[in-house]
């Protein structure tokens, strides 16, 4: 029974392809004007993509199978990769459902048959919709996780500069995850490079609150336990004021305003000197 009905629908859709297409294009255009107006991506929403979208849908109605030959998946991927919003695809599919149902409602008056038609269409379209949403969320998840690792990679490098002197420049906000990484890299690096002095540069840290200060103090303490000295540099005047207001005690280790001053201090501690070669 079901298969027969399905064929009937397919036949009807094929016969009325032109009308459906025009109705669908109308709906999509209305959506594009209303929702995507002003977006930069509007330029890329060419008629070509619309045509391709609809043709693929019709093609897949004839296949009775959405995953067949993968052209629909490819198309979705392609659309999402060009930076078109996911809304374009979901709205497009919903519009397809609407125009097809409208057509069928016009030609079919028997209630029972109509209900069956509704179910049939849903059964065909819902997996496609799910597929689209799944694909796009996968793309996003992948992007986010790639960026997260990229961020962690440049998170807290320890750079050996002179013999026994290393620098750790910190840039950006420090959260718990980064704080752990800072501690690990710092201690591993101190052993690896046999650093006597480590300079932690916080010029690029926008806010030093009690949590950040606490982590820096702990890191400096741990470095001290390894027998090395930690110098905190790059303290901007406004940061100095907020640290004082917060009542944070940083007197246990030396601090300097700039990396340059810290470096001079570090050279002194390690009994080294920079000599100009004239």
């Amino acid at each position, binding site marked *: 029974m079901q298969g027969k009905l399905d064929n009937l629908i397919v036949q009807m859709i094929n016969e009325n392809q032109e009308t459906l297409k025009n109705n669908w294009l109308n709906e999509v255009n209305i959506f594009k004007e209303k929702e995507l107006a002003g977006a930069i991506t509007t330029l890329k929403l060419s008629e070509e993509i619309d045509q391709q979208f609809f043709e693929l849908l019709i093609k897949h109605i004839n296949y009775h199978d959405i995953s067949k030959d993968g052209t629909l998946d490819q198309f979705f991927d392609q659309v999402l990769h060009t930076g078109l919003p996911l809304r374009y695809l979901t709205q497009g599919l919903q519009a397809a459902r609407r125009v097809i149902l409208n057509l069928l409602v016009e030609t079919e008056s028997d209630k029972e048959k109509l209900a069956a038609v509704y179910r049939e269409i849903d059964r065909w379209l819902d997996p496609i919709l799910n597929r689209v949403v799944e694909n796009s969320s996968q793309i996003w998840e992948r992007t986010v996780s790639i960026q997260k690792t990229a961020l962690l990679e440049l998170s807290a490098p320890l750079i050996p500069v002179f013999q026994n002197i290393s620098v750790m420049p910190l840039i950006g*906000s420090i*959260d*718990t995850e980064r704080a752990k990484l800072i501690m690990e890299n710092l201690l591993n690096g101190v052993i690896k490079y046999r650093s006597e002095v480590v300079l932690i540069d916080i010029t690029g840290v*926008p*806010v*030093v*609150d*009690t*949590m950040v*200060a*606490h982590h820096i*103090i702990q890191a400096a303490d741990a470095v001290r336990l390894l027998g090395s000295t930690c110098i905190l540099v790059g303290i901007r*005047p*406004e*940061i100095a*004021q*907020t640290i004082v*207001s*917060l*009542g*944070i005690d940083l007197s246990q280790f030396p601090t300097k305003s700039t990396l340059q001053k810290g470096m001079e201090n570090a050279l002194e501690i390690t009994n080294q000197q920079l000599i100009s070669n004239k």
Partner: protein
Amino acid sequence: MDIQSCVEVRNEWDIVSARQLGRNMAKELGFGNVDQARITTAISELARNIYLYAGRGKICIEPIDQLGKKGLRIIALDNGPGIREIRKVMEDGYTTSGGLGAGLPGVKRLMDEFSIESTVDVGTEISATKWLR
């Protein structure tokens, strides 16, 4: 009163966005560099407290104008466990999480006005104001 802007605090990244909102509003109102740093640090402390102790809540920031006296108010709201001993948390060095214990007393010193209301098992509301000089 002016429009209030709020940021929901649910994870560590929300602390950053609350801070950014505060910094932008402070800049717009004409606060100097040092006061901007004070305000953002205070927001950071309050937002972190919400994240650490209540799990979720929100930070609202509003510009205020009282008879020509301009300023910025930060309101931190949560429905967390509340604070049992307010007097104690306002002491320097008191902490239940192993931190420095400088957060709330620090916020009070960073800002010009400070008030805290908390009911156990109901939630906490902290409001702090900085005046534009």
